[in-house]
């Protein structure tokens, strides 16, 4: 083979990014490819719908992938019973659209035990109402592929996860035995009882998600936009008082502050950020200047440093 060794490097002058969103098209095409692969290769796929911005993007891509057919994959929301009320209203609005089927699962054992993030703490609550609940739902419906909105830029152990991430019959992830994943060739073969988690947004960044939401006019929960909201400062985080279950501790008082949320989850576990960003443009501008990461607002992640990996090994999404 003829070899032109590149001894004297001459660099062309690269223009400033002209086709600013070309890479969004590439990301979109990749995600659509992944959705179609799931529909073609699994008997009972499901899409985990968490109501957040990533889920909004997932749902948008799900519809695009199978247009003009209805999406052949149902949605599943694992309801911890502690979500923001605005999230539930948004979810019910989505459920009312006639092209998708949305299932809701609640861990009734946990409800009977009265599990609460305010009493039992973030770890116990998440374990019972989220991780265990998800396993219950997957087992109940016999889903063999569960699509989620996780991105590799969110967290260090996520950066190592495959697009098609294999789980054993106990829903456990073994980071040392991940299947090598070449090109866009996904190994979708599993034994009965085993399943995969599929992450079509693996290669998207938080910024890509917002740019895409803006470009495609994708609806998101209003909590992402700044507004005056009743908040309490607790353990260094701003917690929104969303219903009467939130009991004030001594010395705490409710303030009205201009805040928004970068991620959404259970309201007692989700910190708000002080912000005046009331529009998508303002959010994107704020993020460009931001010096903190997305998951900082998540109280569940502030356990020992590798906690996400440990939770995932046990079946957390």
């Amino acid at each position: 083979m003829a070899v032109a060794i590149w001894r004297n490097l001459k660099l062309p002058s690269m223009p400033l990014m002209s086709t600013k969103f070309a890479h969004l098209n590439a990301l979109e095409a990749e995600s659509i490819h992944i959705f179609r692969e799931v529909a073609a290769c699994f008997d009972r796929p499901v899409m985990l719908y968490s109501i957040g911005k990533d889920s909004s993007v997932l749902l948008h891509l799900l519809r695009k992938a199978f247009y003009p057919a209805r999406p052949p994959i149902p949605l599943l929301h694992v309801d911890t019973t502690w979500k923001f009320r605005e999230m539930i209203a948004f979810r019910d609005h989505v459920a009312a659209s006639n092209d998708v089927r949305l299932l809701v699962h609640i861990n009734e054992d946990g409800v009977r035990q009265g599990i609460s993030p305010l009493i039992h703490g973030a770890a116990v609550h998440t374990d019972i109402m989220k991780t265990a609940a998800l396993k219950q739902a997957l087992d109940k419906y016999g889903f063999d592929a569960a699509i989620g909105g996780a991105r590799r830029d969110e967290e260090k152990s996520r950066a190592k996860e495959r697009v098609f991430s294999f789980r054993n019959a106990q829903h456990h992830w073994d980071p040392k035995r991940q299947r090598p994943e070449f090109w866009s060739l996904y190994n979708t073969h599993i034994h009965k009882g085993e399943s995969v988690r599929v992450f079509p947004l693996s290669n998207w960044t938080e910024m890509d998600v917002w740019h895409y939401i803006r470009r495609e006019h994708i609806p998101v929960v209003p909590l992402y936009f700044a507004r005056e909201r009743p908040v309490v400062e607790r353990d260094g985080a701003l917690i929104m008082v969303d219903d009467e279950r939130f009991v004030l501790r001594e010395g705490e008082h409710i303030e009205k502050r201009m805040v928004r949320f970068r991620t959404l989850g259970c309201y007692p576990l989700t910190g708000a950020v002080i912000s005046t960003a009331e529009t998508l443009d303002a959010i994107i501008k704020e993020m460009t200047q931001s010096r903190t990461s997305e998951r900082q607002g998540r109280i569940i992640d502030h356990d020992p440093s590798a906690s996400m990996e440990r939770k995932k090994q046990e079946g957390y999404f």
Partner: protein
Amino acid sequence: MAGGDTSTHNLLRFITCGSVDDGKSTLLGRLLYDSGMLSDDQVEILRQDSRRRYPDSDTLDFSLLTDGLDAERQQGITIDVAYRYFHNARRHFMVADCPGHEQYTRNMATGASHADLAVVLVDARKGLLQQTRRHTYICLLLGIRKIILAVNKMDLVDYRSDVYEEIKNEYLALAEQLGGDTAYVLPIAALTGDNISSRSQRMPWYKGPALLEVLESISIEPQQPGNFRMPVQWVNRPDQHFRGYAGTVCGGHVKVGEAVVIQPGMHKAKVERIVTADGDISEARTGQAVTLTLDREVDISRGDLIVDAAHPALEADQFAGHVLWLGDEPLLPSRGYWLKIGARTVSARITSIKHKIDVNTQAKLAAHRLELNEVGSCNIDLDHPIAFEPYAVNHVLGGFILIDRQSHATVACGMLDFALRRAANVHWQHLDVDKQARARGKGQPPRCVWLTGLSGAGKSTIANQLERRLCALGYHTYLLDGDNLRHGLNRDLGFTPEARVENVRRVAEVAHLMVDAGLIVLVCVISPFRNEREFARGLFAHDEFVEVFVDTSLEECERRDPKGLYRKAREGQISNFTGIDSPYETPAAPELHLHTEGAKLEALVEQLVTYLIPASR
């Protein structure tokens, strides 16, 4: 906008690779930090983590940013690929930080399959190492045409130009030998940031650009766009009025009204619409995920290929290619695997390993098997013809993975080089008298009764008695005994796993011929591996193959030891003995399961006769 421009010239996908401790993770962390991609809380966590590991120093240990798994942080090594994303005013970057240990080569290769460019690191104090060569070789094997060698840790050799020059010359010679197109070499110090995002003051003798300058301005020519190709991923049929073929275009472009053919086979049609959720478009290009409708009814299913009618792809069922073995168990020629290519999955066998390649010297070595992380040049045989292109021309239509049929693990990735013409030249002679005619003449349904079980389980005894019964009833039979065949047909085979696979393959093929002749064939072979029994089953029609598990415990077989073999195996006189130092994989769903212990021979044979001969006879 699924129909929009998907050119990715403003996205550079690259990997960092090289040997352990050459500083890959540190380099990547430094790139993220220098590009301002790290948030304050991430830097703060990094500062705490760094201090925990190095209590006496204020240096940030950037490797802690990317080694995200518990095991990695505990051992201070990178096990799996970490994908990171950053951008500046000129470009978006997607970078895969690849592990350096030889045992994790498969993970490194995974990262390389997604990259346009590789940054190979070497430690200036150590020079080129085996992993430098190995990773460079794998990058080129997977089609990465642009390589940057970053001579790292220049701070530890006092920024000396002679050290750098020596490594540079050695590497350029290596790249030339390996057939790389372009390789660029530059001196850096990732820990201190020299020549990373700005040119270093400490190496004035180096006149070239800093690493980030190279990364943000280097042009990546897309693989030759070529002719229109689209694997059908999913058939979209919401109702009887719409029938679309969804897929991602993997070559060239197509316009509404253009003629296409569907492969394999050569059904012709014209593109009627190109459908996307954002409205129909008039043209689809490489990289776009679209749905095509055609102007006529054609039988198309997932895995078929829609291509430019004037330039169809090649079709074949035998290939020469390269395989990188990823499995913990070695690759055994003749064993069946699933091969996935594009949207198609077929059964495949590696018919021969022509040679394996020593990654250090690129010498071609003779090989009977491929072990984990070895690369071999192989011949591959498929059970169905596929449409393909050589990997060098089209990565989607020439790149494949092999999947183990039992464990479902991904055990290899491979690249098709060219089709072998043998299958096309050896024609199948169609005969007028067929299996049905022969069987009718004998008044019996042809069968292959496959008795599997441990040595000494009683296979031959049962088969012998069964044949006597069948013969007495007037049936035409033949008994193929594993031991007897090893005196003739299989005389050249030993008892290694490879030889056992080949032994079973030959026995199955002979049984297949005899069933074709209309006989009831009784096969007695240990056939310890599920894969090979499934291969045998695959040769026969649905009802023809009767797997009989002659189930006798190892203790009982050893107690019987009719040929004295267990004693010899225990004494170490023979090796690879099933049940002792070679595994027996129990049948999952045999047609008949005979428990021999405590059972009478006549009763067992009666079970078989009842199964084989319907009561009416």
